[in-house]
């Protein structure tokens, strides 16, 4: 990770439906700025939407930290969702499609994992859950504002 490209860019609360809209808009804007293609933008925004909703519905609210990262060749956006909710007792099961402890389709966590390049989840029952996802641009970052 190059020091120049790294740094905490934003920390957004996830407390209500309205915050989900803000998270989506922020991720869309940040990924567009970094030079993500439209498909990659949409995938990352959708993953962020799923994970932010999990944080809100199952984690009882929390926050997301958006960090711009770079490995010298390409730029990336890393999103860390954290809550202090009940935690996930069986991660294997939670990541499998069709399993839900609520009323959803059970695709959020597994689907989000397929929509991003890197996916890490850390959950301790009774303490909370942290999900970190990273996606990378296909090419070197384009200049700001360019198409």
């Amino acid at each position, binding site marked *: 990770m190059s020091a120049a490209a790294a740094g905490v860019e934003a920390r957004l609360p996830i407390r209500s439906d309205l915050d989900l809209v803000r998270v989506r808009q922020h991720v869309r804007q940040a990924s567009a700025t970094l030079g993500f293609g439209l498909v990659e933008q949409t995938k990352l925004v959708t993953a962020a939407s*799923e994970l932010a909703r999990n944080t809100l519905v199952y984690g009882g609210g929390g926050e997301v930290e958006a960090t711009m990262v770079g490995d010298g060749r390409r730029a990336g956006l890393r999103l860390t969702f954290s809550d202090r909710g009940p935690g996930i007792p069986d991660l294997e099961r939670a990541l499998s499609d069709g399993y839900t402890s609520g009323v959803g389709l059970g695709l959020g966590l*597994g*689907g989000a994992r397929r929509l991003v390049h890197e996916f890490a989840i850390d959950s301790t029952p009774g303490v909370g859950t942290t999900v970190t996802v990273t996606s990378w641009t296909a090419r070197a970052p384009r200049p700001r504002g360019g198409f």
Partner: protein
Amino acid sequence: MAEHETAARHRTPENPGSEVGAFLRRRREQLAQRWADEPLFRTVFTVARDEAVEAGRVVVDALAQVAGHGRVEDPADPGFTVVREQLSRMAAARARTGLTPSRVSTEVDALRVPADELLVAELPDASAEHVRACTTALTVLMGTLRLVVMETALSEGEALIDRQRLQLLEVATPVIRLWDGIVAVPLIGTLDSARSQVVMETLLESVVDQQARFAILDITGVPTVDSLVAQHLMKTVAAVRLMGAECVVSGIRPAIAQTIVHLGLDLGTVITRASLADALGYALRRLGADIVRAAPGGAQAR
């Protein structure tokens, strides 16, 4: 007289609240005149100074009543009821000119100064303790007024947001009759649970009203289709089907299509088309209608 003054000098008021109340009633006119020159009143009642003075009198009366109840610290005192609407109108008028809530609050606080001066001028011979008790009661009372103004202003704002939210729900979900038996809903923006409920209701109603055989849900204007949005869409499709009509989802952009596949959503049971035009063409053909060009040479002309 001398005896009375001596008594006043050494006495600590038993109830500073009611004493402040009595003071406000005595000085009602002077105070209303002074307040009419303060920004809060002066800038709201611009047409006639009399109006500002009259508004000031009403506020003084309310404060006197609250103080008389001995509840200078209670914003819920019934004495405030009569001025609540007027105060919220004044705060709203100030906010419209671009003032922040804290600036409005500061302007309300500015009303304390003339009241304080009048009160102290009335007690030249009273003991320091007495003066302090009275001014403290007045300060608390004016602080409560400040709180009441802020409270009403905030609840006004919340009511406005609620109203706009309701309006947006209705505005954003028009059902359009495209042809005999074909209705369409262009969805725009975020499809949350409340909006999808409204969409479903209005769509089902129009399926009945228009005796529609086909209902088209166009999601061109929906920026993100995640699993919850998809779930709402599938529920709407299922409900339309139960009404005996067929539902087509159109406006699925390439990026959305790829995302849906990666997400693992199975829309296999839903009829989808890339654009609203495709969906309309599909529905027309299924109804036995077809669009043909009027002139035989039309196809070459284009």
